[in-house]
């Protein structure tokens, strides 16, 4: 029985870089934006802003109702975490998450640009694009993969409400790094 040769990080990188530009189809969120997830989101940082929590107060503002906290847009669409995103990407028709030697994921940087306010009741859609992938060493892993993904979030009127660009670090554990080292002869 022959065992398939394990790919090197450099071979995986070549494969990953061919995926740059891959984009998913827009996916509609199952539910509209709702009050309760906003309440839970605000409670975690003791945020009592009535714009997000009090329908009577919010009705009298220029928005005319409760709005989604600006940074909640991404979490509500993706389940919040890089791991959740990875599962979502794996299920997508177009593969977005590239192969990488390490499975531990850390979100290193995030860039946001908002163009519309999101209200309770809005129906959001999103699509995701693989923007870049490269190797850059970190203390734990000399062949850590850096993956840049963009999520474009829209509403029921076809308007883009915000774009979120994430820089994800995928790395191996110290044990995995040691196991992947080529054995020295002698």
């Amino acid at each position, binding site marked *: 029985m022959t065992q398939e040769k394990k790919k090197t990080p450099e071979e995986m990188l070549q494969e990953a870089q061919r995926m740059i530009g891959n984009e998913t189809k827009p996916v509609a969120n199952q539910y509209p934006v709702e009050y309760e997830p906003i309440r839970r989101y605000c409670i975690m940082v003791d*945020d009592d802003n009535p714009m997000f929590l009090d329908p009577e107060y919010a009705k009298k503002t220029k928005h005319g109702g409760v709005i989604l906290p600006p940074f909640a847009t991404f979490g509500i669409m993706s389940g919040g975490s890089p791991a959740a995103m990875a599962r979502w990407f794996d299920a997508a028709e177009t593969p977005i998450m590239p192969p990488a030697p390490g499975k531990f994921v850390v979100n290193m940087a995030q*860039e946001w640009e908002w163009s519309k306010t999101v209200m309770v009741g809005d129906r959001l859609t999103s699509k995701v694009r693989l923007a870049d992938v490269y190797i850059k060493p970190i203390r734990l892993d000399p062949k850590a993969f850096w993956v840049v993904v963009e999520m474009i979030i829209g509403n029921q009127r076809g308007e883009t409400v915000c774009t979120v660009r994430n820089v994800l670090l995928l790395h191996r554990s110290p044990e995995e790094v040691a196991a992947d080292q080529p054995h020295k002869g002698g």
Partner: protein
Amino acid sequence: MERKQLYWEDVKLGQEIPTSYSLKLDATRMVLQVSGTQDYYQVHHDRDFAHAQGVPDPFFSTGFISAALGRLLTDWIGPEGCLRKFRMEMRRMNLLGDTMTVNGKVTDKYIRDGEHYVEADVWCETDSQGVTTPCKATLILPSRD
């Protein structure tokens, strides 16, 4: 609960953002984090999993940190202000047991295409790590004119 409205004319270059606050990052806060973000990645709540990754303890998620920074800014700018752009870098971990403070300082203000902009450096810092998450924010405020 009512929020005061901030106007562009009232912002001064170099001023600190007055809505700075601190949170104790204890176990209860970690549970609230999972509930609020719906982020179940174990590195944000499971000590054994965190250790297996080579990090000293579970650390708070990007979703939690951005929510904390969002509170700082939306409390300050009032109901008619809005965030336009934001960049955050997760340089160090906000660890279980730390006390985290969010703060900021105005770096620029200008008018472009009829909109009244403010730029600010904002950040999270903890008692064990110092500045963990340096950020840059671009905001739009209403004008008194």
